[in-house]
């Protein structure tokens, strides 16, 4: 796939990416070692397990101006901690409904199972999500939040 670094010259989305240490963070390293080019839109935050990701982290990211949030965990059945990814999935499902009610398009939040060997998948997911966000345009939730605070 071609580099999507310059998908949109005016505006590039920023994605906060929460990756679990064992699968998706390792996949991200693998993508690096394999020199797979993808859009420079993600800002990775490493956690030990996707089960550690609190809904409030995701909301915090949106409120602080993230255009998208990507969560990466181990495939079902493969969690390093047995079942943290299932806990993550439950919270994600609930949060999906919640963010829509808050006026955040549900496409702005994405959960993907990416194993340590799937560097290629990571590249595809980031590029796809970047394209989606470019179509959606910037998230305005930060301004909304600021207005409410004022």
């Amino acid at each position, binding site marked *: 796939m071609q580099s999507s670094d310059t998908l949109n010259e005016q505006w590039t989305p920023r994605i906060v990416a929460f990756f679990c240490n064992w699968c998706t963070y390792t996949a991200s390293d693998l993508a*690096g070692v394999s020199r797979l*080019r993808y859009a420079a839109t993600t*800002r990775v935050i490493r956690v030990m397990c996707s*089960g*550690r990701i609190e809904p409030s982290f995701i909301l915090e990211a949106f409120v*602080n101006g993230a255009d998208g949030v990507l969560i990466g965990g181990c495939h079902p*059945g493969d969690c390093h*901690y047995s079942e943290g990814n299932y806990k993550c999935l439950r919270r994600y499902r609930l949060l999906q409904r919640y963010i829509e009610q808050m006026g955040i398009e549900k496409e702005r939040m994405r959960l993907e199972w990416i194993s340590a060997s*799937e560097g290629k998948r990571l590249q595809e997911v980031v590029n796809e999500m970047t394209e989606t966000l470019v179509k959606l345009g910037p998230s305005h939730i930060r301004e909304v939040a600021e207005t409410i605070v004022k």
Partner: protein
Amino acid sequence: MTTNHEIRTGFYICHCGHNIAGVIDVMAVTEYAAKLPFVVVSRDYKYMCSDPGQELIQKDIKELNLNRIVVASCSPLLHEATFRAATAKAGLNQFFMQMVNIRENDSWVHEDKEMATLKAKDLVRAAIHRVAYHKALEKKKVPVNPDVLIVGGGISGITAALTLANAGKKVYLVEKDPTIGGYMAKFDKTFPTLDCAACILTPKMSAVKEHPNITLWSYSEVTKVDGYVGNYTVQVTRKPRYIIEDLCVGCLSCIDACIYKEGKFPSEFDVGLSKRKPVYIPFPQATPLVVVVDRDTCIYFKTGKCPQSCAKACDRNAFDFNQQPEVKEIQVGTVILSTGFKTFDATRAPYYGYGRYPNVFTSLEIERLVNASGPTEGHVLCKDGREPQNIGIIHCVGSRDEKTNKWCSRVCCMYSLKLAHLLKEHTGADIYNFYIDMRTPGKGYEEFYDKLLNEGVHFIRGRVAEVSDWAITHVEEGKLVIRVEDTMIGVVRRIPVDMVVLSVGMEPGDDAQELRRLFNISCSNEGFFLERHPKLAPVDTFTDGIFIAGACQGPKDIPDSVAQAGAAAAQALALIDTGYVELEPNTAFIVEELCSGCRVCVTMCPYKAISYDEEKHKASINEALCKGCGTCVAACGSGAIFQNLFDDEEILSEIKGVLVE
């Protein structure tokens, strides 16, 4: 801020030669970081991980009185330990160091320099914010159980077991088949020296059996794994072989006495080319030399109407038809997985006619046919009893192919050459090798190829299109015709032969996925076990204390498997002789005053590390059982659970840090 004293952060960015500096404007990031809060010093250096790079940090800690360090370089999975150690060496708690991954996550995956630099600044800002919240932590030391579990008794497992046992360590060797020996036991000769495989392997098999430090459990499988590095609890299930192992002396009278006068069922060891009885040993040197009763084919188990002539023939009363699976639980500190591979199923390449034409064989079948102790005592004959006049060996069957397996199996060129030599020796036939490229990297390998060229074996360069029995000339009648483009002369050729050998490649074993889950390790894309680092940690996995050796990690010949088994044994020994491991202090804890006693966390923990005090109405975490996933922290509605290294304020400062200038 949680700390009262002044925060003084040192920031260091690594060029990594051109790896980082070629894409990211390192100077711009250095200048940017210098202006961020708490940053006292901001420096760049060509290679931060080098000694001078580390000394730079240490000097600054001492001279500038730094109490926080941020290093922007490669992945923390690669060099976190290095920079933590450097920090500790200067007298600062190692957990006051935070790494920023601007290589794997940035310069290696982006081409747009401006965007990559912007990203680096965002990541650096986040780390500088985060590190301010870090706390001094201590690693917990836990003892390492010196016993080792080895799973898989092929040449890799045997080598690792003997190495460790000779070093005085207690080894449990678990093998799923009735005998150890693996694939190597099936081979006739080994390349390139043409040593007899059995002659070099069987003494090692006996040594395993006799070694006082090795507990050999054949016909057994690992069914459960708990614990962590240094302290694994493993459940091994011993399948019933309906023989009391300690009583059987391997006299084999029972096999003679079986009511089946001749073998009737395909022998697993001879890959179906010979027949065995329901009561059998896989091959004469099977280790342990203990008979097996195959429940699926035994008349007694199927109908209950057998006089049990085998059991009656046993003068040691070793038979026990009521035997049940026996579950053993063992404690080990380290594990070596050497579970091997399987060969490519040739029916998946139907154009080569395996299964349709009786005289198309796989290389493994030929290994048995040329073997003096094989089903034909070394006579290589066509299925109708004819001596083959000409034999075609097709390389890369299932390998280097988009439709099947993309990888090169590394051993097939060499074993095809070996088989060409042996077949010529045994039959005197004309031998044709059909190859894409000859791959002979290894000591004495290219020389072996030269030898074959001089022996008059034919080599045709080209991927074979198909094998058929469709004759268009009378020379081709009754023959198998190999159709191939000879790329050396640019002509499509038809080569009529009596026998075709398919050089099948290596694939991950059927149980690889199951084992991966059991031992909590990863597989690479094609399904072989994933090593921690392809070059620098080839036998380690991402799970501490679990090592891999041999073809379960990827296609490998015998010398490489043996070398890797030695390396895995050495890694296990290093852990054992250190005597302890230091655990990452990323455990969670509950602040009792904040706990509302709702018990949500108790159900979250997969390790049963959280208990609930009924009297105090408070939950608490047993630190020794906590593995630091943080799932309970995320679930706690009262905000009473905290996780070292991944606390809320640390993560939240990072989130804000990547987004807000």
